[in-house]
């Protein structure tokens, strides 16, 4: 339950707080004050300022929108590919199963991070298009686990008596899939979605930390950490706050997904 509240707090903070911070406290995430560079945390700037004198707290809050959106997009893409593929190969088996297995094998044998590094050099610098394409590509490279899990469940549901009964009553494949198989994988998919979102946020932050993901001036939690090595001695608060945001967000999503798993489907309990 605490995880849920923490997550709600993070989402509310990233969505609402930047507006309040800007209108009430006058903290603008983009305003540069070059006389106020590298200010340590104080009352005026609770998380200090960065190399261009921008308020780190305001930036961390705004960056959360980008990071969360990217995490959601990654999860969405990975589910949109993984769930149908898993359902179809579990339900139909046979040649389709072989084919999807071959594709999964192939993708699992590609060093994804190196491919991403290479692809990152070809992406446009556009502040909206680049994060979006990045998320789609990360999602498209990471749906294999989802497909495998969904396939397993679909496969076992197919053999149940109630599916046999539905077939005996003349139900079509589509009806069996949507009425019987899909509801059974639903709780599993909810849990996977949680892990995918958190995993997506972590993946984006890593790539942006390397300087190859989201590029400045757009702020994501990862891109705020790009070039951190120089700040280790000079301005530790620049490293602390965005990382803390990543950690707490990922943690709350993981815990929530864990709790959901136990609540929705006790059989999945570890």
């Amino acid at each position, binding site marked *: 339950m605490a995880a849920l509240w923490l997550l709600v707090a993070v989402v509310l903070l990233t969505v609402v707080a930047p507006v309040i911070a800007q209108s009430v406290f006058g903290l603008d995430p983009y305003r540069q004050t070059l006389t106020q560079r590298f200010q340590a945390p104080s009352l005026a700037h609770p998380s200090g300022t960065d190399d261009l004198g921008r308020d780190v707290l305001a930036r961390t809050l705004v960056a959360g929108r980008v990071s969360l959106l990217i995490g959601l997009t990654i999860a969405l893409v990975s589910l949109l590919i993984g769930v149908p593929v898993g359902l179809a190969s579990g339900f139909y088996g046979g040649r389709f199963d072989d084919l999807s297995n071959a594709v999964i094998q*192939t993708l*699992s*044998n*590609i*060093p994804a*991070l*190196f*491919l991403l*590094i*290479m*692809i*990152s*050099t*070809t992406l*446009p610098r556009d502040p909206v298009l680049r994060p979006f394409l990045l998320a789609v590509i990360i999602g498209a490279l990471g749906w294999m686990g989802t497909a495998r899990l969904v396939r397993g469940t679909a496969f076992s549901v197919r053999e149940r008596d109630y599916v046999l009964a539905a077939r005996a009553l003349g139900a079509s494949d589509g009806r069996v899939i949507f009425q019987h198989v899909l509801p059974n994988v639903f709780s599993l998919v909810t849990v996977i979605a949680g892990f995918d979102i*958190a995993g997506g946020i*972590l993946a984006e*932050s*890593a790539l942006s*930390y*390397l*300087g*190859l993901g989201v590029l400045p001036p757009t702020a994501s939690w990862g891109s705020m*950490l790009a070039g*951190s*090595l120089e700040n*280790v*001695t000079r301005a*530790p608060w620049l*490293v*602390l706050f965005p*990382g803390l945001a*990543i*950690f707490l967000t*990922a*943690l709350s*999503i*993981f*815990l929530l997904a*864990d709790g959901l798993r136990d609540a929705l489907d006790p059989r999945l309990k*570890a």
Partner: protein
Amino acid sequence: MTSGLTRYILRRLVHSVGLLLLISMLGFTIPRLAPGGPAQFLEDPRIGPDFRARVIESFGLNDPLPIQYLKWLGNVARLDFGYSFVDRRPVIEKIWERIPATFQLSLASFVLGLLGIPLGVYAALRRGRWQDQAIRVFTVLGNALPHWWLGLMLLILSASTLRIFPLGGMYTVGNGSLPDRLWHLALPALIGALGGWIGFSRFVRSEILDILGQDYIRTAQAKGLGSRVVLYGHALRNALIPIVTMLGGVLSGLFSGSVLFETTFSWPGLGRMSVDAAFQRDFPVLMALTVIFSALLIFGNLLADIAYGWVDPRVRYD
């Protein structure tokens, strides 16, 4: 059995070659999609047009694409990955000199990470008690925590209050002694081992709990074997079998290293090289690394699958 295994290996080898060809095509095509093409590094306005044309010609970038691909592929087959766009040195030479650094850090991280196995055994034996809970909390926190960020935070600590560890690099300049090198290795290796502790401990814990419920464990206990013999001789040995499947990732990881940790700790290995190459648009280096690491991963996975059948006779190849 033997002929089945031979046929299996042959089939997998054919698949692997096909897969490598596919990846090489990907690795060749992606730079061509970059804005400005593969010769983007020449976009600098200070570079004159005739010099630009000469360089492009010298790298063979004027040939038709299929010809370029076949030429490149032919060279790659002879382990010639061409010349770096940045310093014109042979790519294979640049890669070769980075391998020791990467291998050192990866091996240290892996060996330290193996401590996750006893951790998992311990958690399984103390199931439900506070020790198990504590290890569980550690793994949950560790999964949500970006390890490279933890590394940065420890660097901050080393830079300010706790001046225990160096701030990066492999050794102090002018002092390449063994203690100095180990001192530089300690923090990166510990951070790199975190993944192993988390992964192995979870895996081994659930495997052991699974196996302790099996009939052959009850048989062993029923015939009066001591709990120690049952645990180490029966349960642990069987629990470790599936770990062999992780071998593929481990083998390729030993050479490819960690992009994130090498960047964080200024470690001059292949991981950081790939990031630098991406920044410099040094596509020959990037293409070479992609092909080499894919080959290692594919080969490692093949070895792992063969080894799995060797340690677990229940596995059949057909």
